[in-house]
């Protein structure tokens, strides 16, 4: 069995090249070869075969018609193949040689015929298409409303989706992203944030201290001395905590309890104005339950600039939550040892008709900024990631994020 190739199909539609050439010259008389090239497709094939058939002659770069054949046998054979009429072997060989037809292998034909025998046909097969036998097939009717088993792409973990979203929000607002290590000195985690060394948050019940490494290096002496002074006597107009500050307490290694350690470390390095953010993991020695995990993600940001005021802090927070999809935000007084104006932002959650606390924020105390050489107001926030995600998705149990990597549910979430 033979069928037309792509070229064959083209010749069927447009006519074989030599036929088109003969018709052209018959219509317009002798013509420059270059002119022919412009006027018909496959001009060199056309000239070649017309010469071979002695239908034209070439003289001085011009083609001249010698005779118009009574019929174009090849053209008729192409029609014959297309309509599945028989064609003589000699012509078939010529057509194969010119890549106008190709042979469909016997086994393919057989397969296609076998498929046809099945009666109502379910699948359209390559064999049916190759042999053209699909024309004779009766295809099974499909219920087009059935979408079949669900298809799932590889997808993101839901938290990773939100981390990306939050990173984009801050990048859009022109913030610089910074990162820092999980293992931090108490100095950067607490002391530099003006948390007195006997502060309850530093207790073992709240903070993971480390057996290995138990100690870490303190930063350069100037900073250490500044922080010590802030605690003991106060810096600037501050009265300080008034106790004896111990270096041994400050170099104890901890798993950072907040990403504020990254912010405060950055403060020691930057020149205002600066806008910095971090979205990363923190650790608290909290018993595992539906709303507490020993590790979770914090959304941290600072803005250090001469012109900063309290309403700007509220402005950034409101904008952030708006971009996350929470339109109703309110601000309550809070308390953190390192901020003054301390603010707890809350978002309104309609389904529960409740205001829910989202984290902490404020303006860094000058006892924090001055020892680091910063003399402008610094807005700061450390917000929960999991909380708004839980609210958005209606998740009640925070453990679902980390301990229940259920592949079925994750696939279905489609992030």
């Amino acid at each position, binding site marked *: 069995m033979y069928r037309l190739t792509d070229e064959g199909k083209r010749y069927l539609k447009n006519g074989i090249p030599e036929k088109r050439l003969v018709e052209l010259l018959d219509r317009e008389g002798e013509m420059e070869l270059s002119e022919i090239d412009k006027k018909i497709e496959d001009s060199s094939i056309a000239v070649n075969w017309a010469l071979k058939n002695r239908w034209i002659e070439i003289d001085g770069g011009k083609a001249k018609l010698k005779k118009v054949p009574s019929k174009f046998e090849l053209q008729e054979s192409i029609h014959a193949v297309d309509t599945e009429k028989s064609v003589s072997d000699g012509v078939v060989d010529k057509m194969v040689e010119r890549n106008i037809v190709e042979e469909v292998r016997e086994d393919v034909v057989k397969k296609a015929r076998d498929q046809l025998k099945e009666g109502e046909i379910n699948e359209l097969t390559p064999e049916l298409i190759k042999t053209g036998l699909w024309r004779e097939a009766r295809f099974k009717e499909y219920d087009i409303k059935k979408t079949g088993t669900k298809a799932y792409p590889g997808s993101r973990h839901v938290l990773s989706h939100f981390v990306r979203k939050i*990173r984009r929000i801050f*990048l859009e607002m022109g913030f610089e992203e910074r990162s820092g290590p999980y293992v931090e000195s108490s100095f950067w985690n607490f002391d530099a944030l003006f948390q007195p060394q006997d502060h309850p948050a530093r207790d073992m019940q709240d903070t993971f201290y480390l057996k290995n490494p138990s100690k870490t290096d303190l930063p350069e002496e100037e900073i250490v001395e500044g922080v010590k002074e802030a605690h003991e006597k106060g810096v600037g107009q501050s009265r300080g905590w008034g106790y004896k500050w111990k270096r041994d307490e400050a170099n104890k290694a901890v798993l950072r309890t907040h990403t504020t350690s990254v912010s405060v470390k950055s403060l020691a390095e930057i020149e205002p104005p600066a806008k910095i953010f971090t979205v990363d993991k923190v650790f608290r020695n909290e018993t595992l339950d539906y709303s507490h995990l020993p590790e979770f993600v914090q959304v941290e940001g600072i803005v250090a600039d001469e*012109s900063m005021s309290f309403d*700007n802090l509220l402005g950034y927070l409101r904008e952030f939550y708006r971009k996350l999809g929470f339109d109703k935000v309110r601000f309550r*007084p809070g308390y953190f040892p390192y901020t003054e104006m301390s603010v707890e932002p809350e978002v309104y959650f309609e389904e529960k008709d409740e205001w829910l606390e989202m984290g902490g924020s404020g303006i860094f105390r000058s006892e924090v900024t001055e020892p680091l050489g910063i003399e402008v107001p610094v807005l700061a926030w450390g917000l929960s990631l999991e909380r708004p995600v839980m609210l958005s998705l209606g998740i009640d149990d925070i453990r679902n994020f*980390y301990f229940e*990597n259920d592949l079925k549910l994750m696939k279905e979430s489609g992030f």
Partner: protein
Amino acid sequence: MAVVTFDRRELKELIGRNVSDKELENRVPMMGCDVENVTDDELEVEIFPNRPDLLSVEGFARSLKQFLGEGEGVVEYGTTEGELEVKVDGSVEDVRPFISAGVVRGVDVDEDILRSLMQAQEKIHTTLGRKRRKVAIGIHDLGGVEGPFTYKAVEPEEIEFTPLGFKDKVNLLQIKEKHPKGEYAKILEGKKRWPVITDSEGMVLSFPPVINGVATEVTEETEDLFIDVTGTDQTAVDQALNLITSLLAERGGTIETVTVDGNVKPEMSPDRIEVDREYINRLLNLDLSDTEVRESLNRMGLDYSEGTAVIPCYRVDVMHPMDVVEDVAIGYGYENFEPKIPDVPGIGSSDEPEEFADRLRDIMMGFGFQEVINTVLTNKERQFTMMEEDEMDVVETENPLSEKHCICRRKLLPGILEVFRQNKHRSYPQRIFEVGDVVITTENGADNAKRMSAAITGRKVNYTDIASILDFLLESLGIDYILKEAEGGRFMDSRGAYVLHGDKEIGSIGEINPEVLENWSLEKPVVSLELDIEKVMESADSSIL
């Protein structure tokens, strides 16, 4: 975090009117306390550690009344000069060096006052007092004891008295061992001598920070009170005394001074701190007049005139002009500020490794892999033993939450296997990956390192399934690599390899050893890929990044 419960009947008596449920729910949070619960009879609130003056119903009522605009500016508590003296013996220097004391007369002690005193004392102990280590308060019936009193340190077995709750005299060591409050004696651990307060006859009034004696027990018959506060920090000790004396003054008591080691206590006159109005207005972006600043501060119980803020003696949190500015803001009302986005220049820039890691996530998702996230905290058994690998130096917590969470992960792959284990009932094949930080110990501590681990499990899964992914991944990043056979450990022999770029090992790949699969109760083959993200990033063709 201190949560206290107040009786609404008492609040009503102290404020002079009933404050409705709605008012409590709406206004108390804006004053700076979390409302936990409001019932018909009680109000439960969380008091922040900077405001121990709110731990008593008297102090809370005082502040709420002011915040609602019904108070009268700074409350000043006058003192009258008293004759009582407390001598301080040098022996306390190394034990519990500081003491302060006061007398309050004419209090009509009733059930409410007793309960309030006990609650305030207990809450101050746990917060400001750091569980009595820093500050401990003793409250005594002054009737029947004679001054001068002496604060001294004695050998634990040298002195006997009858502590509250006991019928017989016991020495200090016996109190430590037998008395329910004896646990607080652990604060004195390592001290050869323990502190006591005695009267002129040598009778023990108190064994701070543990227990008082029965001789001065406060009852509803009590009219005159003696308060002692001992501790390790003079300021905190004085502050705690003021909290108790001002509480009693709110109940109609007259405060009388005591001479403590030559110093007159309590010192209850208000404090003054200079706060420039411009500074206030600049930080708050407001335009308040002196009068408006004063009005705001009055709602917080402070006063203000001509650049000076007046702070009542019970406010222990004000140590910087900023603290006064915050009170202006709270008094003005956080809800009255208009949030404003400022115009601070800055071009957003992302953390490069994080950005690169996110690109890897996209590639892996393109391969149909599901992202998972596991906890950083894990244990050695999962990280090493179950992986049939040698233990590595890891970050280990001193106070772990549980045996399951006591070290920081050094590798991601165990977490991946854990996810497979949890999902044995789900359909196969499973293709998952995690991108995250592991923690590596260094010479000076420890540092994070970004890693990626990906794995496939299923009936017909083999090495080439993952090798082809590695090949595309690295090729697309323009990284030449070679594979060097890895021996033993988590991989099957001849089916595991290190991924090298030049001499640098940037990852590993292989088919997991069935021994490891058994450890994780996995019954289908697993092939895995691990990459060191920072090293891959460094090796990548920068024009592609």
